[in-house]
């Protein structure tokens, strides 16, 4: 039922990208978010596409799988593109039918924006597809470590994040289970007017809230029973390791940035 969302989902495989340290992947993905905005011409966008295609290839995530996850976002991409195509009035007029006018500048702008969005979404989903949630939170905790000096509860944030990530599948399972139980009692979640449908979710939400609170309480108790007392002096079972490949990956990204600066118009 809720199987097509791939944001935040991990794709198990053994690829160079999977083996990279989560810190370098986080830094790279974050950095990438900014340099995408440097591109403003065919050459620079081409460069970004080549780089992204290279990353996808080295992740060993099947294209079919990526495409399935992109589907929900494609609507947004197409919509933004059309907005630009129809509303930007720059350059030569290419087509005119009644009130509808398409200009060259608008078309190019639309394509660029669509590419930008797609590249951003692709790269960020690659991050979560190739990194387990635990690795991501570990990496974040490391990277944000310096903020502890200003008494920011970095460890607690990371813990909260990993707990919520951990319980997403559980919650989905539970949702499906209760949905089925209520459907067996004749509940209908998929048809009827909106007002009725909103009401139909009460039998789903109440049990979900009840069980979530119960689970939170049980989890807190179980953690305390096993002596948890915050991040102070806590060591790790699996330490993060920085390899040469991480340095190389970041260097590649740096080279890409320099090229983008040189080639942008």
């Amino acid at each position, binding site marked *: 039922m809720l*199987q097509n969302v791939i944001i935040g989902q991990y*794709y*198990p495989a053994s690829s160079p990208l999977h083996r990279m340290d989560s810190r370098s992947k986080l830094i790279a993905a974050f950095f990438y978010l900014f340099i995408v905005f440097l591109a403003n011409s065919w050459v620079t966008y081409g460069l970004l596409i080549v780089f992204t295609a290279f990353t996808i290839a080295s992740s060993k995530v*099947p294209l079919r*799988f990526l495409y*399935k996850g992109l589907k929900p976002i494609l609507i947004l991409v197409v919509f933004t593109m059309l907005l630009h195509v129809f509303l930007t009035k720059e350059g030569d007029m290419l087509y005119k039918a009644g009130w509808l006018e398409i200009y060259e500048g608008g078309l190019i702008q639309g394509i660029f924006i669509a590419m930008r969005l797609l590249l951003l979404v692709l790269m960020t989903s690659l991050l979560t597809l190739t990194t387990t949630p635990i690795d991501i939170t570990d990496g974040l905790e490391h990277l944000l470590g310096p903020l502890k000096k200003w008494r920011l509860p970095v460890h607690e944030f990371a813990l909260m994040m990993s707990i919520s990530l951990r319980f997403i599948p559980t919650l989905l399972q*539970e949702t499906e*289970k*209760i949905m*089925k*139980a*209520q*459907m*067996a*009692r*004749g*509940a*209908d979640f998929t048809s009827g007017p909106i007002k009725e449908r909103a009401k139909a979710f*009460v*039998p*789903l939400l*109440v*049990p979900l809230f*009840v*069980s979530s609170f119960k689970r939170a309480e049980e989890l807190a108790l179980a953690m305390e029973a096993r002596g948890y007392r915050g991040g102070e002096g806590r060591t790790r079972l699996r330490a993060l390791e920085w390899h040469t490949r991480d340095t190389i990956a970041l260097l590649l990204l740096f080279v890409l940035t320099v090229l983008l600066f040189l080639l942008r118009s």
Partner: protein
Amino acid sequence: MDISVKRLEHRYMQGTPFERRALHDVNLHVADGTFLALIGHTGSGKSTLIQHLNGLLKPSAGSIQMGEMVLEAGGKKQDLKPLRKKAGIVFQYPEHQLFEETVEKDIMFGPLNFGVSADEAKETAKKVIELVGLPESVLSKSPFDLSGGQMRRVAIAGVLAMNPEVLILDEPTAGLDPAGRVEIMELFYDLHKKNNLTTLLVTHSMEDASKYADDIAVMHKGELYLHGKPSEIFNQREALQQAGLDVPETVQFLLKWNEKSGQNLTLSAFTIDELARRLSESLKKRGK
């Protein structure tokens, strides 16, 4: 209602790398009025199978016939409500599905969804709450103020209130105390007899299966592994052990007894009383 499952296959998350085959080539016929126990190791496909019986899961291949209605792989969308009214499912830990402010309202949820009038539903609620062994005063309480065992009974009442012809029970006694287990199982068995229901019981308990079932179906790795009368099934200890199961304690005891004494006793029923009767009979004969 006759139930007939033909070449049923189910794949979870079809078309993703997480695809998993949960059922394969299952053929099963359950005649009207049968009490069928469905046993099998965890992950053998029991729960997947029963969810097909009222259209909660769609077959990846094969078909299911429930009375007049046929659910086929790739078939047209049909209105499943009539089917869901006739086939009531009590899920594992059904108390998790309670949500209303009062027990009465929660029990009325099913009947109201199936178009029963509010007054009638109220009447039904009174009837079924008594049926599951709770006092009428519970009706006005919040289900979340009840104990775990009481919540279970209320949830069961909510399914019984739909007055189903087929009762599908997915480990209805899991997590209950021994006395509660017996009470709940007796309740289902009485209903089965009285209302001439067709009952499917998913269970891990060989004792329950042997005590109540007319037929037993054993699932193993998504396939129907054995199907027959209890006496036939429990004669195949090795086959059962292959599927990660074992015969009931009474049979285990009798097999050991036979081994030690060189006799060849058999049981017609699998209760402890029957075992004791057989043993005392044979001992008396020997004494003579």
